[in-house]
C-alpha cells in the first residue's frame, strides 16, 4: 500500500542500530571527516566572505581578502601544518550545484542516484570546491561505481544476506532483495524461520540462511556470515575480497556465492 516498488520492513532494532552509521549520505560526499582539524575558507568568486577554524571558530587573522588561486591557497595553508585539511569553497559553486541538482523533478532517479549526481556536481568543477588534501575519491575504498557494477552483475532477481556476530550474538542480520539492479525489499533476520533466525557463526548457519532465502526470497546470490572484527576490517581495508578469503580460511567468515557471482562488491 505504501509503495509498490520498495519495501523496508521488519527491521530488527539491534541490526538497525548497528548499521545506523552507514546511513548518513554526507559522509560519502564530503572531503575529510568530522573529527579532523580543518580550516574552511568561503569566498564569492574570489572575494573572501568567511574563514572558519573547526576548533577555534572564525579566523580574521589570516589576512586573506581575495582568492585568486584556490588550489594554491589550500595547499599553502595546509602546508603550514596548522590544519589537517583546508577547504576553499566558492559560494557560487554551491549555489550552482543547488540549482542544477534541482533543475528537474528527478523522478527517474532513486535517492542514491540523485546523491551520486550531487557528489559529481560538487567535485567535478575545478576550483569550485578545493580541499587539501583532496577528496580521496572513495569511502574506505568503496565506490559507488564499484558497488553498482557488482549489483549490476548479479543474476536478476537475487537476494543477499549479511550476518555479523559479536561472539554468539547476532549484531547485524540484513537481507536485501534485488531486481533490475535496485533494492526492492530490505529486511532483517527477524523475518527468517526460527532455525535460521538463531544463526551462529558457522557453516551450518550459512546453509540454513541460504536455504531460508531460497524458500522465501528471490534466489540467493550471496550470503556472508562473519565476526564483528572481520566486518569492521572488511569495511575499511583496501582488498575486500582478499580479506574475506583470508577470514574464511580461518573460520572467522563464511561466504557462499551463487555460480558466477564475484566475491568483491
Amino acid at each position, binding site marked *: 500500500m505504501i509503495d509498490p516498488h*520498495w*519495501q523496508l520492513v521488519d*527491521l530488527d532494532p539491534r541490526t538497525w542500530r548497528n548499521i*545506523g*552509521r552507514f546511513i548518513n549520505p554526507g559522509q560519502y560526499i564530503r572531503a575529510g571527516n568530522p573529527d579532523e582539524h580543518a580550516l574552511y575558507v568561503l569566498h564569492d568568486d574570489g572575494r573572501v566572505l568567511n574563514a572558519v577554524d573547526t576548533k577555534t571558530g572564525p579566523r580574521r587573522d589570516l589576512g586573506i581578502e581575495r582568492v585568486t588561486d584556490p588550489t594554491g591557497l589550500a595547499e599553502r595553508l595546509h602546508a603550514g601544518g596548522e590544519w589537517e585539511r583546508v577547504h576553499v569553497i566558492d559560494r557560487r559553486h554551491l549555489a550552482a550545484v543547488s540549482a542544477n541538482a534541482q533543475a528537474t*523533478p528527478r523522478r527517474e532517479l532513486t535517492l542514491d542516484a*540523485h546523491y551520486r549526481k550531487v557528489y559529481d556536481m*560538487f567535485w567535478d568543477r575545478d576550483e569550485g570546491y578545493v580541499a587539501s588534501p583532496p577528496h580521496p575519491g572513495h569511502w574506505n575504498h568503496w565506490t559507488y561505481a564499484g558497488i553498482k557494477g557488482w549489483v549490476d552483475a548479479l543474476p536478476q532477481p537475487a537476494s543477499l544476506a549479511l550476518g555479523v556476530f559479536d561472539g554468539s550474538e547476532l549484531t547485524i542480520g540484513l537481507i536485501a532483495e534485488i531486481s533490475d539492479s535496485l533494492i526492492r525489499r530490505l529486511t532483517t533476520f527477524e523475518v527468517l524461520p526460527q532455525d535460521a533466525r538463531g544463526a551462529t557463526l558457522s557453516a551450518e548457519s550459512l546453509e540454513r540462511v541460504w536455504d531460508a532465502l531460497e524458500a522465501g526470497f528471490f534466489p540467493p546470490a550471496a550470503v556472508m556470515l562473519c565476526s564483528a572484527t572481520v566486518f569492521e576490517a572488511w569495511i575499511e581495508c583496501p582488498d575486500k575480497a582478499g580479506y574475506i578469503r583470508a577470514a574464511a580460511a580461518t573460520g572467522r567468515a563464511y561466504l557462499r556465492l551463487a555460480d558466477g557471482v564475484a566475491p568483491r562488491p
Partner: protein
Amino acid sequence: MIETYIPWSVHETAPGVYDWGQIDDRKDIDAFMTLCEERGLWLMVRPGPLINAEMTDFGYPAWVLLDPAVQAKSAAGSLHLDAAWGLHPPRPFPVPSYASETFYEAAGGWFDAICPVIARHLAPDGCVVAVQSDNETTYLFHDKPYATDYSDASLDLYRRFLAYQYGAIEALNAAYGTSFRAFDEIDPPRDCEIASAVDLPWHLDWVAYKEFQIRWSVSRIARMLKDRGLGSVPIFHDVAYQETTPHDVGRLEAAPEIDWVGMNCYCNKEQYRTVATRARFLTGTTRLPFVPEFGCGLWSHHQRTFTPEEHEFVTLSAYMNGLKAINFYMLVERERWQGSPITRHGDFRPTYAPFYERLGLFLKKYPLWEFERQRDALLLLNYDIGRHVAALSTLHVAHADLLGLPDELFDVEIDLGLRWDPRAESDPNQPGSWLGQIGRELLSRSVDFDIADTHTDPARFGLYRVIYLQSVDFMDPADQTSLLRYVEQNGTLVVGPGMPTLDPLLKPCRVLAQALDAPGRARVGEGELIWVEPSAIPALLDELAAPAAFRAENQTVQLSVHTRGGQTLLFAANPTAITITTNLTFAGCRTLTGIWGPPGRVQGNGEVAVSVPAYTVRIWDVHEGAGA
C-alpha cells in the same frame, strides 16, 4: 486514544478517483472508524495534505506534485526538491508551494472526499476527537529564509503581506529608503545582502513573511476542514522542532482556526536538555503541552535506533519537565519504521514493550496530567533576536548540509553598531549566553522554570512571579509594552545582557529603557524591573529565586516537583553516563517512597541520600514526617 494519518495519495489513486476499500479493503477508513467506536477507542486523525511519515512523496499524490503551477521555487529559480534538505527515500520529489492556489484546489478536492467520512464519526457520538491541519508545515525542513519559496504564487503572497503590513507603498518606501510605485514591483532578497541597518527592513520583512506563509497556510487548511463539517472538534497543528523563526508557535496558536499547537520530539538519551527545553517551551507557550509525534518508533534512516532504556528515560524526562499529552508515535511499527514496541504483525517486542505496559499502569495510579509542576519563573526568548540571526545568514542552498560545513560558515558578519551580540545570545545552549546562564543558575539551585518567547500570549505572563528576558540592543516596542504592563501589575522582569533602546530595525525606541537606563533595579507600578549583567546573575538569583522545596547537592541531578491536592511527586533525572549518588536536601522530615525506580522508602530530617543510575529518572511519592 489512538491516532492515524489518512494519506491523500493512498486514497486518491488518480485525479478524482478514490479507493475507500472497494479495491483494497485495507483502505476502508469508514470501517476503521466504526471499528474504533465498537472498541471504545477515541481517535485523532491527520488527513494532511502533507503527512510525511516517511511515505513515498510524503503522502502527496504524484500528479499534484508534478503540476508546475504547484511547485515551489528556490532562490535561484530552480525547483525545490525535498532532497534539498534531509534524507527522504526512495526518490526526490518537487516540494509544493503552500502559496499556490492550484495546490489548494487539489487539496480541497481531497478534503471534499475525506471530510464527509470523518464528519460521520465526530465525537461525542463518534470516535474522532481532534483533527490535524497539515503536518510540520515548514518548507519540507529547508527552513532557512533564503532557501525557498520564490515561486510566483509565493511572491504574490509576499507582496500582499507587505501591503497588509505597510498599508501604503509610501510607508514601505519610507522604511526601505526606496521609491517603489506599487507593491508588485518589490522582489524579496534571495540571499543576505545586508551591508548596513538600512538593509534590515527588506530582509526582516522576508523573514517575517516566511513565518506568515506557515501561519496563513495552516490556518487556511484548518478553515477548509472546518468548512467541510469538522468544526465541532479541535483542530491542531504539529511543529517539527523549530522554537524560533520561521515558526511562531505563539502567534500560530493565536490564530482563531487553530485550537492548539504541539511540537514533535525524537530524542536519544544524550539529548536530555532538548527534551527538557521542549517540554518547558510547550508548557510556557501553548494551551496544551502536547507532543503529537513522540518518537517510539523511528524512521528507517534515523541513524541511532533507540534502545529500550532510552524509551524509558526520554519519556519520563518529558513528563518530568511538564508535558501533559503525548502521542506515542509509531507505537505500532509500520513499513519504513523501526524500533517500535509493537511489530507490524501485532507482536510485542520483548525488550521494548514492557516499559509501555508498566507506564500504562503507572499513569492509571498517578495521572501526571492532573499534577501541577512547581515553578514560578519564565525564561523568555526574544523572538526578534532569532529573526536577526536568520536574516544575517547565507548558504541556504540545497545539499550544503551534506558537506559537513561548520555552522559559523553560514554566518554573515556585519557591524551594525550593536553593543550586544545577537548571535551569541541567540542560543541559550552556548556558554556565553545570558539566558543560558540564567537557566544554568536556576537549575543549580534545583529551581524549575518554563520557557516561552516574546510572541507568546502576554496574558500568560501573569502566571509567573519572575520573568527573565533575553535582550540585546533592540526589541519590538509592542512586546516591550506588554512586558512593561506585566511589571506594572506586580511582576518582576529581569532583563539582560542589555536593555533595548532600539526597535528591530535599529530605530530609537525606549519603552523599558524609559523606566531603567542602567544596570540596576527600578520600581514600576506594583512590580520591579531589573537589568542585570552576567557577572551579577548569581547574587541576584540568590535573592530572587524562590527556594526550591528539594535541592540536589550534586547539581547534575535535575529535580522537578509535581503536586496534586496534598500529593507530592519528586522526579530526579540523571542525564549523564555515570551513576550519581547525591544528597537531596529539604526542610523538615520527609519520607520518600519510590514509585519509579527501586521501590522502598527513604526517610530523613533535612536530607536523604539517593542514587540515580546513568540516564534514568526516579520518581518518589513524598510525605511529610516519618514512615508515612
